[in-house]
C-alpha cells in the first residue's frame, strides 16, 4: 500500500510526497485564486451588468457593453472603439519590433566586450529598468522640450512650428514605449546571444551565405528562445500601457489602456470598462496564439 520509494535521493512514501506537494502549492494556488481568478470572474460578471444613472452597478443582464465596444450605439455604427483597440495592437507591435531591431546590435555589442566591462554595459541597460516608469517618461518631456536639440532639429526640418515641444504625438509615444520596453527585450536576448554557437555562423559563411542569410539561418534560430520571451514580455504589457500614451500622446492618442482607465475612473462606467478589458484580454490571447503558431511553423529561408 504505502510503498517506500526513493525520490531524488530521499527515502519517502507516495502519501508523504503528496502531502508535501499540497503544502508547497497550496499558498500559491490560494493567492492566484483570490487575486487573479476571482477578480477575473467578477470582471466577466460586471461586463454584463448595466451602468446606473449615477455610475452605480445595476444587476440586470445586458450585452449592451459589448455592442458598444464593437461600435454599435443609438447613433449608429462608429469605428471609434475598434480603432482604439486596433491602434493598441499596432503600437504594441511597432514597439516590440523597434525594441528587437535595437536590441540585436546592442546585445552583440555587449557580448563582444571583454568579460570585465561586459557587466558594466549590462548595468547601463538595467539601471533605467529599475527607475520608475513615470520618471522615465517625464524625462522625455525635458528632452523633447522646445529649447532642446531634437525639437529644434525637427523645427529646422519643417516638421513642427517654432517653440513647440516634440510632444504630444504618436512619435513621442513610440519613443517613450521603446525606452520602457527595450530592457525587456534586450535582457532575454542577451542571454541567448551570449550562448550563441559561433561555429554555425562560420558554417553559414563557409557555405556562401549572404549576410541576411547568415542572420536568418545561423543567428535568428539560435536566439529565438530569448527573442520570443522578450517579445511576449514587451507586446503584452505594451498593449495595456496607459502612462506613456497618457503623458506623451495627449488626449487624441488614446490607447485601450487609457480607455479602460477612463471608464473605471472619470466616466464611472464600470460595466463598459469591464467589457473593454475583456476585449483587450481576448485580443491579447489571440495575438499570443497567432504568435505561437507562427513561431512553430516559421520557415527560415
Amino acid at each position, binding site marked *: 500500500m504505502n510503498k517506500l520509494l526513493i525520490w531524488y535521493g530521499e527515502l519517502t512514501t507516495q502519501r508523504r510526497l503528496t502531502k508535501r506537494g499540497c503544502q508547497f502549492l497550496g499558498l500559491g494556488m490560494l493567492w492566484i485564486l483570490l487575486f487573479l481568478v476571482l477578480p477575473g470572474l467578477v470582471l466577466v460578471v460586471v461586463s454584463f451588468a448595466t451602468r446606473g444613472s449615477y455610475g452605480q452597478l445595476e444587476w440586470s443582464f445586458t450585452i449592451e457593453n459589448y455592442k458598444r465596444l464593437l461600435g454599435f450605439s443609438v447613433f449608429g455604427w462608429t469605428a471609434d472603439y475598434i480603432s482604439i483597440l486596433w491602434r493598441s495592437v499596432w503600437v504594441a507591435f511597432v514597439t516590440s519590433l523597434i525594441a528587437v531591431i535595437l536590441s540585436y546590435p546592442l546585445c552583440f555589442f555587449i557580448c563582444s566586450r571583454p568579460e570585465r566591462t561586459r557587466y558594466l554595459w549590462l548595468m547601463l541597460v538595467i539601471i533605467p529598468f529599475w527607475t520608475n516608469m513615470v520618471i522615465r517618461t517625464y524625462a522625455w518631456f525635458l528632452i523633447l522640450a522646445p529649447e532642446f536639440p531634437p525639437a529644434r532639429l525637427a523645427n529646422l526640418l519643417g516638421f513642427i512650428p517654432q517653440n513647440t515641444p516634440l510632444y504630444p504625438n504618436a512619435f513621442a509615444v513610440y519613443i517613450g514605449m521603446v525606452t520602457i520596453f527595450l530592457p525587456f527585450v534586450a535582457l532575454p536576448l542577451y542571454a541567448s546571444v551570449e550562448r550563441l554557437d559561433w561555429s554555425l555562423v*562560420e558554417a553559414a559563411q563557409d557555405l556562401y551565405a549572404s549576410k541576411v542569410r547568415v542572420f536568418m539561418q*545561423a543567428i535568428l534560430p539560435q536566439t529565438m528562445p530569448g527573442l520570443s520571451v522578450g517579445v511576449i514580455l514587451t507586446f503584452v504589457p505594451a498593449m495595456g500601457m496607459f502612462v506613456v500614451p497618457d503623458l506623451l500622446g495627449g488626449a487624441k492618442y488614446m490607447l485601450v489602456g487609457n480607455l479602460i482607465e477612463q471608464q473605471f475612473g472619470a466616466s464611472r462606467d464600470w460595466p463598459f470598462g469591464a467589457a473593454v478589458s475583456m476585449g483587450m484580454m481576448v485580443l491579447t490571447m489571440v495575438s499570443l496564439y497567432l504568435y505561437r503558431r507562427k513561431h512553430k511553423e516559421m520557415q527560415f529561408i
Partner: protein
Amino acid sequence: MDMTKNTGLSVKGIDKSFGPVEALKEVSLGVREGEFFTLLGPSGCGKTTLLRIIAGLELPDSGRVILGGQDITSLPATKRQVNTVFQSYALFPHLSIFENVAFGLRSRKFPKNEVKSRVSKRLEMLGLQGMAHRRPDQLSGGQQQRVALARALVNEPKVLLLDEPMSALDAKLRAQVQVELRRLQRKLGQTFILVTHDQSEAMVVSDRIAVMNQGEIIQFGSPKEVYEEPKTLFVAEFLGAANLIEGRKNNGRLETDVGFLVLQRLPKWEEGTVAIRPERIRITESPPSVNGTKARIREAIYRGTDIDLWLDPGPLRVRTAAHRGYAVGDEVWLEFPSAALVILDE
C-alpha cells in the same frame, strides 16, 4: 615542397598572433591538387588556426594564401571555393538533413531541380538516403559526420578542409571512417586537408603529412617518411613510440650507453641523439657482431598480437611478436640495425 604548381593550394610565410601568443610563425606549405594532406600536431600547435586561415575564417597577420594560382588571402570565406567540415559538425539544427546539405547550393541560388539532384546524389554516396527529412539531432554521431561531409562536398570545393572530424567518434567507428574517408577522397580525386592530433589517423588517410609544433612546420613527408625518418626528437616521439639514444662521435662510431653503434652515415653533430622504433630492435639468442648489447627484461606488457618489453639498460622499449614468450627477468641480446637508427637534428 611544391609551391610553384598553380593548380594546388599554397600558403606562403603566414604569421598569426593572438595577443601575445604567436600561433603561427612564417608557415609555408604547398598542397598538390588531388592530394590528401594532413596537418598533424599536438593541441595548440597552430594547425587549426592554419586551417581557419585557409578557410577564410581568420586573417593572417602577414603572408599569402594562393589557390589555383589566385591570391585569396583577403577573400572572405563566403567567396572562397573552399568548404569545411567542422569539428562540432556545425549542422543547422532547425533544418532537415536535405536542407543542411542543400545550404551552400541555395546560398548560390542554384535552380531547384539542380539542388535536388545534386543533394540526392551526395546523400546516396554517403549512405544517407532515407534520412533526408530527419533533423540533425535524430542522427547518430557517425551519421551527423557524414552529413557534414556531404554538406561540404556537394559544393564541389577546390579544397575540402576537415577540422578534427573524427574526434567525436568512438574508436571502432573512427577506424572505419578513416578508411572510408580515404576511399572517398581517392574516388573523388579532390584535394583534402585534414587537421588532426592523432598520428595513427594521419598515417591511415594521408598522402603527405606536415608535422607541426609551436606554430611551425617541423617536417613534411609521406607517412612512411615521417615515421621512419623523423628529423627531430619531437617528430620521433610524436609519431608513435621511439627509443632515444644519446651519444657522442668517437672514431667513426657513436659511443652510447648501449655500447658503440655503427650508423649508416656520420651525424653532423658531435654529441646528439639517435632514435630507433621499438619494433626495429632485434632480439637475438647469441651476441650480434655489431650494434649489440645485453639486456634484462624488466617488464613485459602483453598486447595481443605483440608484446611490449621494457629492458635495462635504458629503459629500452622493444616490441616483438607475442608468441615468442618472453618473461620478466630473462636476459637477452639486443641488436640495433644500422638502417633502423635515425639521426635526429639538434
